[in-house]
């Protein structure tokens, strides 16, 4: 075995200078590649805008449908508003998460990612950050309309944006992992919500409570434990998904 290895060395080294860039191969290399994945997804999405426009229209439709179904009036609108908002976000987010790995699957580009010399978790983070960006952006665009439809005060928007981002991180954290799983199954579009919703119940509960607290103008102390719970969920499940992702994408 030894002599052969020595024979091979020169040949490999001939090709080495071109394939290696010491500057990039530092610890930054990892984040550099995560960002490469994110920007690739953004470029692709900006070209078609298919997913974001679908999510946008879908969330609006959910708000409309609630309006018809419950005949929301001024006196009960503000009590139902948080629920309506989060149902809209959850369902629209499901659309986005579902697409996330399907676009990688169509042309086998997921394999392309897996072939790259980077830890598999970089792929998870890249896709995760992309998902959070897409879903949160759409929902933040929805917020002013939500305020208008439910006749709420505009000053609550910054706080709502914060909750929307935290909630989106919560379900995109597990959602990205499950999204990578369901592309290998039959009935992949149906399966994702079935797997994901039971697990993200805490995210929905705390996000709805926080949204209600913001709308009612409660002090932060009253909803502090929900905020803590939401952040804890985000961190714990991001870590779990990060660890398990490798087992999901291996062939």
């Amino acid at each position, binding site marked *: 075995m030894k002599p052969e290895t020595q024979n091979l060395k020169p040949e490999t080294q001939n090709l080495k200078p071109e394939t290696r860039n010491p500057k990039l191969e530092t610890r930054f290399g990892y984040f550099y590649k995560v960002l490469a994945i994110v920007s690739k997804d953004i470029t692709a999405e900006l070209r078609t805008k298919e997913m974001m426009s679908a999510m946008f229209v879908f969330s609006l439709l959910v708000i409309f449908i609630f309006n018809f179904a419950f005949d929301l009036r001024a006196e009960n609108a503000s009590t139902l508003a948080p629920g309506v908002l989060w149902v809209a976000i959850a369902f629209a987010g499901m659309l986005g998460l579902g697409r996330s790995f399907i676009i990688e699957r169509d042309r086998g580009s997921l394999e392309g990612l897996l072939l790259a010399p980077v830890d598999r978790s970089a792929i998870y983070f890249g896709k995760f950050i992309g998902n959070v960006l897409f879903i949160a952006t759409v929902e933040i665009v929805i917020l002013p309309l939500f305020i208008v439809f439910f006749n709420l005060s505009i000053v609550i928007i910054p706080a709502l944006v914060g909750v929307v981002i935290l909630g989106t991180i919560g379900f995109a954290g*597990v959602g990205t*992992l*499950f999204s990578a*799983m*369901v592309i*290998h*199954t*039959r*009935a*992949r579009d149906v*399966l994702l919500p*079935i*797997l994901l*919703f*039971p*697990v993200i*119940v*805490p995210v929905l*509960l*705390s996000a709805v*409570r926080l949204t209600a607290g913001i709308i009612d103008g409660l002090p932060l102390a009253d909803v502090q*434990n*929900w905020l803590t*719970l939401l952040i*804890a*969920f985000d961190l*714990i*499940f991001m870590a*779990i*998904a990060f660890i*398990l992702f490798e*087992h*999901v994408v*291996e062939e």
Partner: protein
Amino acid sequence: MTAPTTSTKTGDAWGYALTTLSAVMILGALYLAFMYAAEASNLGTQVERYAQRIMYFHVGVAWIGFFAFFVTFVAGVMYLIKRTFFWDNLGHSSVEIGLTFMTMVLITGSIWARPTWNTWWTWSPRLTISAVGWLMYIGYLMLRGAIDNPARRARFAAVYGMVAFLSVPINFLAIRWWRDIHPTVIGSTSSEASGGFDMSSDMRTTLLFSIAAFTVFYATLLYHRMRLGKTAHEVETLKQQVLYN
């Protein structure tokens, strides 16, 4: 070609022993629940006091419902490390049994809730978490059913079983903060939880025995289900050997 290991006589003996033991223990638990344990005297009506006795089974069954989930979690961890059929079989079997028990929890709970809370269903934390757990078990089985490649099926099931189990405590905490009317049976003096009662020592004995009986029953079902799974796996292996050689 190596002949697959067939189940030995010892294996059957284990099966008979476990089956007999669980039959005896379940009958014993029935006797204790209906004959031995005292009535919960603080409860108002006769119906309520009678319905309270379902608690001995309800708690035992609920314990298994969640314990089975834990077994699936452990099996998932072990599968990802060892990659052997045994752990996949264990996780899968445990979910099927857990789902059955969780269904029983929801049914016995409803039967008890009707006279006690005057409703079949409330969104109390324990009910809600049981329902959520039930949905996770269903999701687990649907996930398995939707994957053809056995190695991938085992891997994904392991991952989902782990994530689902780990979400149970945080889920429970969230739902508990959401609202609570379920009685905390053991060690609670809160009178707000409607339907609660103090446990006397005979009641405690009955409850503990019942829990033990259901645990043995679970082990028995698990044993038989895993043998079935192993046989199915062996048949599949033989089929492949015939087809591809």
